[in-house]
């Protein structure tokens, strides 16, 4: 059995070595266990923290780091609560057998939610160690101080059993190295896990607010890091999927003789409409997948409308579900008495996850167990899903998380892991599954398309008196997290989940004070809900970029009608009340907008710039736009300056300022880079990304037909302004909020608003580039 005790004993030295090269897991290098793999007990302190005789500590956390530095941040906050030097720590993440199930990644909750139990268990370890120190010296805990894992006697020792000063220091390693804490924690789940120690006030945290370099980066630039794509095992073979040529096609027959002559060909694995080929060597599996003759029968009716008819279809379709309307004030009366009523429709197409590395996994069926090596962000869910899919006991399935290509939610339903496990079980050998680029781009999960209708009323003074937000999302049968009934292989094998997920159409995230407001939402289905390449799944802040594009573009349209400066117009809407929510998002929104405007050097005036000036100007027009958003408790305001080339229509976001308030910042330099990159990701969705399809299949299948942001789009300058807009910014319990997604949300509207400022043309469909810029 792979107890924590064995784990330390067998791999303790290796853990440190591996952490130094940036991640990876000891099991890859040491044969520790043959299974089964029971869950680590989240109520045991030993499941979270190990301290060795050399006074180093390893933290075991059930999250996955997708390249945004959460592992480094965990080390910082846990080092602080434990009172140990940061560089004496390491972090093991995301594998089901040696880290507690904290759900893996999702919802930017790593620090906001899971950071707290991690801090609490580290604080509890410190408390227990101080008690051990008190026993060791025969003094009360109040006579002790601790720094960097060294406990010192500092107070009065009168009456202690130590007669003279002698050794007055002891390390954590001396006290517990090589032994268990044996401390039982309390809590209903990993979010509420706690000991009895109190958390430190922010002011006493030494590592928080500093910027140690991310420990995962050296191995990523010197080639030493082993990724999930690199995993091999003795006897491992290679599999490739063969997908239906059109959506909804059913398998008629397979001519296995068509690939029999390929060297190292092993088998065609097939069930229902799922088909894969297995070969000894990778290049031969690729060849076999291309060469295999398969007869398919096309579906009788089209699975979906063509992408150029999508929004007409969505607006006319009968909803599969309708959200409960939300209304405040008297919206009809407010519109009836409004001096001006503005209406606009906005469209955002399906956008793909299109990870830089297509889906992949390696599954090893050795010892009657199933071990899956994967970059699955939700490794714990995959373990449950695969166990159910294969009909295996949970504790015989182990999922080992390793670094992989950022998928922005793609691996929340990690098809390749299920496929590798299925084939490995079928053939009884370790199997590596690797999707092709075309397969990934066509068949990965998609962010839902949205069609919006916005209606706003202004009074005679240009105040917003009414707003009606109407959203329609193509999100029926939204994919679950690693569900054995909904992953692609399961659907292709004919499984149909009884209760189809209804999906959702989301509301925008703003703190504007508008007296009369109505929100109506509905979800519409495409004709074919199963076995479709238009499966919707969570794409980075699942609906935020879409809905914020509509809201923040429309706020700009209202500002234009009101002849108001877009920054001042937003501040007016936010300052129309002094009431705030518990997280002070309204006050923090004001702080972010002001900080962004100040950093940018915003010139107060209505948009657009003078049309006369534009007509006379050079080939390049310039303009600036603002948009803001929050996600959970994190608030962002983004200002974008664009250059628009009148001749070519090219839009270049030349300068971007992002004011970002995620509460307590753990690692400012890492945060700045996450915000920079995430902002450019939003820019990519604004300018380039769209899933195109005809009535049979997705036609965006590679980087030519599915373009994304490239180096040529890189702004000249990006400024990230870290804001703390809390009314009591020095509060000792200042919360740390998630920072992985919010910055994507405002970028689409910020670009559209900047293009309007530059050209006077309002773009209401994403991506903006594909609509072209036709100058007046």
């Amino acid at each position, binding site marked *: 059995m792979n107890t924590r005790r064995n784990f330390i004993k067998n791999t303790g030295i290796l853990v440190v070595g591996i952490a130094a090269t940036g991640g990876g897991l000891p099991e890859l290098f040491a044969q520790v266990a043959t299974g089964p793999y029971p869950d680590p007990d989240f109520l045991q302190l030993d499941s979270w923290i190990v301290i060795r005789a050399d006074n180093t500590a390893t933290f075991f956390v059930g999250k996955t780091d997708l390249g945004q530095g959460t592992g480094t941040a965990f080390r910082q906050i846990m080092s602080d609560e434990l009172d140990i030097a940061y560089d004496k720590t390491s972090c093991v993440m995301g594998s089901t057998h040696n880290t507690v199930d904290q759900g893996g990644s999702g919802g930017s909750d790593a620090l906001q939610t899971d950071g707290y139990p991690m801090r609490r268990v580290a604080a509890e370890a410190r408390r227990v160690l101080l008690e051990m120190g008190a026993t060791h010296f025969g003094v009360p805990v109040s006579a002790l101080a601790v720094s960097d894992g060294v406990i010192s006697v500092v107070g009065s020792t009168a009456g202690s059993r130590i007669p003279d000063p002698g050794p007055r220091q002891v390390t954590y390693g001396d006290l517990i190295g090589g032994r268990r804490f044996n401390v039982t924690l309390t809590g209903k789940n990993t979010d509420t896990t706690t000991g009895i120690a109190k958390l430190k006030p922010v002011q006493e945290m030494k590592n928080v607010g500093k910027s140690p370099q991310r420990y995962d980066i050296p191995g990523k630039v*010197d080639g030493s890091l082993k*990724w999930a794509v690199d995993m091999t095992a003795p006897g491992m073979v290679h599999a490739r999927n063969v997908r239906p040529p059109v959506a909804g096609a059913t398998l008629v027959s397979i001519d296995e003789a068509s690939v029999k002559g390929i060297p190292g060909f092993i088998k065609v694995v097939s069930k229902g409409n799922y088909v894969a080929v297995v070969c000894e060597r990778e290049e031969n599996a690729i060849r076999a997948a291309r060469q295999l003759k398969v007869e398919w029968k096309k579906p009788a009716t089209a699975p979906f409308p063509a992408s150029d008819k999508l929004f007409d279809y969505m607006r006319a379709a009968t909803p599969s579900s309708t959200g409960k309307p939300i209304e405040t004030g008297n919206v009809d009366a407010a519109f009836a008495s409004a001096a001006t009523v503005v209406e606009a429709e906005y469209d955002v197409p399906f956008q793909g996850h299109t*990870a830089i590395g297509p889906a992949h996994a390696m599954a090893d069926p050795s010892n009657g167990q199933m071990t899956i090596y994967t970059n699955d962000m939700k490794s714990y869910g995959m373990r449950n899903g695969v166990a159910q899919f294969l009909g295996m006991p949970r504790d015989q399935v182990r999922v080992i998380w390793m670094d992989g290509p950022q998928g922005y939610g793609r691996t929340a339903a990690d098809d390749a892991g299920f496929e590798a496990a299925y084939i490995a079980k079928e053939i009884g050998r370790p199997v590596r599954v690797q999707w092709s680029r075309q397969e990934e781009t066509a068949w990965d999960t998609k962010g839902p398309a949205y069609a919006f209708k916005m209606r706003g009323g202004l009074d005679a003074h240009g105040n917003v008196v009414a707003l009606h937000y109407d959203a329609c999302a193509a999100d029926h049968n939204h994919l679950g997290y690693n569900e054995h009934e909904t992953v692609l292989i399961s659907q292709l094998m004919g499984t149909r989940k009884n209760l189809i997920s209804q999906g959702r159409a989301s509301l925008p995230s703003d703190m504007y004070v508008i007296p009369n407001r109505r929100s109506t939402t509905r979800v519409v289905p495409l004709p074919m809900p199963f076995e479709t390449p238009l499966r919707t799944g969570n794409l980075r802040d699942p609906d935020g970029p879409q809905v914020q594009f509509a809201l923040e573009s429309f706020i700009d349209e209202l500002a234009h009608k009101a002849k108001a400066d877009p920054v001042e117009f937003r501040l007016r809407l936010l300052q129309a009340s002094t009431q705030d929510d518990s997280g002070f998002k309204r006050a923090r929104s004001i702080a972010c907008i002001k900080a962004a405007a100040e950093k940018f050097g915003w010139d107060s005036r209505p948009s657009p710039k003078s049309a006369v000036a534009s007509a006379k100007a050079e080939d390049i027009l310039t303009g600036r736009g603002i948009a803001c958003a929050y996600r959970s408790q994190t608030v962002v305001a983004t200002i974008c300056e664009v250059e628009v080339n009148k001749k070519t229509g090219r839009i270049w976001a030349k300068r971007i300022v992002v004011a970002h308030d995620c509460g307590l910042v753990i690692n400012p330099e890492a945060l700045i880079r996450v915000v920079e990159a995430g902002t*450019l990701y939003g820019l990519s969705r604004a300018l380039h990304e769209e899933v195109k399809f005809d009535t049979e299949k997705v036609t965006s299948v590679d980087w030519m037909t599915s373009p994304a942001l490239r180096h040529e789009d890189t702004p000249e300058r990006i400024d990230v302004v870290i804001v703390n807009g809390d009314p009591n910014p020095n509060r000792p319990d200042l919360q740390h909020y998630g920072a992985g997604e919010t910055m994507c949300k405002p970028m689409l509207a910020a670009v559209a608003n900047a293009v309007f400022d530059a050209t006077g043309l309002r773009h209401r469909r994403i991506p903006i580039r594909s609509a072209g810029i036709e100058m007046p």
Partner: protein
Amino acid sequence: MAAITLRVNGEAHTVDVEPSTPLLYVLRNDLDLSGPRFGCGLGQCGACTVLIKGEAVRSCIRPVSQVAGQEITTLEGLAQNGKLHPLQQAWIDEQVPQCGFCQNGQILTAKALLDKTPNPTDAQIRAGMNGTLCRCMTYYRINAAIKRAASTMKGAL
């Protein structure tokens, strides 16, 4: 199948593969070099980049038979005598990678760029690196790291 000798990171290796096999799979599966990575298999993204005679080459579409005997450098071979190449050091100093999956191609494409253009402008970097995709969109820091490395390498001359 045919015996083909490759010179990779200064060492000779003989492999027995189909001559049409893309170099990428031989590097990864036969020589255990995982620096070059599969991103598209179409020569469109750059994740599989290696250096051959100083040129950035996409190993996913280069048949192994065409590069027999030529000096091939992968990410693993960029450091010299245990010291990181200035580009790799700049990548750490600037904390460039997010997920890092594409960074093999970014670093090696930048190496080929700096070999030809030792002091590139922003515009030259954007143009020279344009074919190498990053889905995390770390382009802004890549630009900074290339300029930092260029500065370091100039100082070393």
